[in-house]
């Protein structure tokens, strides 16, 4: 629609929104609606997973994280369905400075990405953040050196299973949790080593699966 109508619509939308913001409890007060319903329970329950954010993401809201991992997988499926055979783009000719810098920092970025995945259950990070770092690294090399350069990074025959590593890791953790405790995604507190292994296994599965999904979306979208 044309500009004046859009501006009038946006202004008409802004007035009730800003008025609603004035009606909320003051910023920083504990009786905001987000803190009075479920968050108080999450603070009160003894979170055996050590970190409150990990406990919310993988224990209290574990099914939501499972659904989110399936959403990434479904996005990959849609992008692969929409693929279209086209003539390949001309291979890029990077300048020596760019090529040198990218080749220099790639191992450090990869190391940092794996570190973020593995430490994610006790520190800021996690499977998806590490997957974004590793996927971005593959994109960087693909944009600078050409997609044929990074296509050899993908494991050939095991690729479909590794791309589904996120949902599969969740399914495995659910089965293990159902066997040891009574619940589907329950973390056994009487076996702390197994509980740690489940959490790290889920993070690793999301990390590797997510990285492969992001890089595959890039390779599918540039026409091959």
């Amino acid at each position, binding site marked *: *629609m044309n*500009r004046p109508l*859009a*501006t009038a*619509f*946006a202004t008409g*939308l*802004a007035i009730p*929104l*800003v008025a*609603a*913001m*004035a*009606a*909320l*409890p*003051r*910023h*920083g*007060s*504990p009786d*905001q609606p*987000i*803190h009075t319903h479920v*968050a108080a329970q*999450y*603070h009160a329950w003894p979170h055996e997973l050590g970190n*409150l*954010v990990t406990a*919310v*993401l993988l224990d209290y*809201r574990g099914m*939501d*994280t499972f659904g*989110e991992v399936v*959403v*990434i997988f*479904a*996005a990959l499926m*849609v*992008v692969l369905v*929409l693929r*279209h055979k*086209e003539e390949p783009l001309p291979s890029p000719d990077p300048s020596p400075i760019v090529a040198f810098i990218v080749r220099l920092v790639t191992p450090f970025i990869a190391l940092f990405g794996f570190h973020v995945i593995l430490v994610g259950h006790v520190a800021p990070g*996690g499977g*998806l953040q590490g997957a*974004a770092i590793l996927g971005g690294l593959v994109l960087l090399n693909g944009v600078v050196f050409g997609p044929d350069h990074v296509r050899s990074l993908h494991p050939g025959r095991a690729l479909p299973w590794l791309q589904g590593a996120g949902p599969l890791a969740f399914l495995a953790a659910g089965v293990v949790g159902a066997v040891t405790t009574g619940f589907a995604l329950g973390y056994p507190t009487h076996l702390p080593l197994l509980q740690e292994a489940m959490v790290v296994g889920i993070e690793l599965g999301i990390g590797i699966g997510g990285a492969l999904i992001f890089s595959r*979306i890039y390779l*599918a*979208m540039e026409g091959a």
Partner: protein
Amino acid sequence: MTTLAGNLDYVATMLLFVIGVWTLVSDPNLIKKVMGLNIMETAVFAFIVTSGALEPPSPIPHALVLTGIVVAVSTTAVALALLLRVHREFGTLDLDELRDLW
């Protein structure tokens, strides 16, 4: 009813949301509309995260927006793949021209 000056953070995120809505509806270019969608999603994430700024800061809103960020990235990926197909089939990304072509 508290004043607007106390909730300035919320007002700022809502203004960002309205900027995103304006970007979505004002420009006929389809990529601009995807950008507007991303701005709206970022505004909602900022609103949820800044509401956790209590006296001991609460990390629970952070856990809530992590899932939201991933869903936003996935929908942007699907939208851009659809735009690629639209461009290859019709040769244009302008909504007014596409409406005439349809």
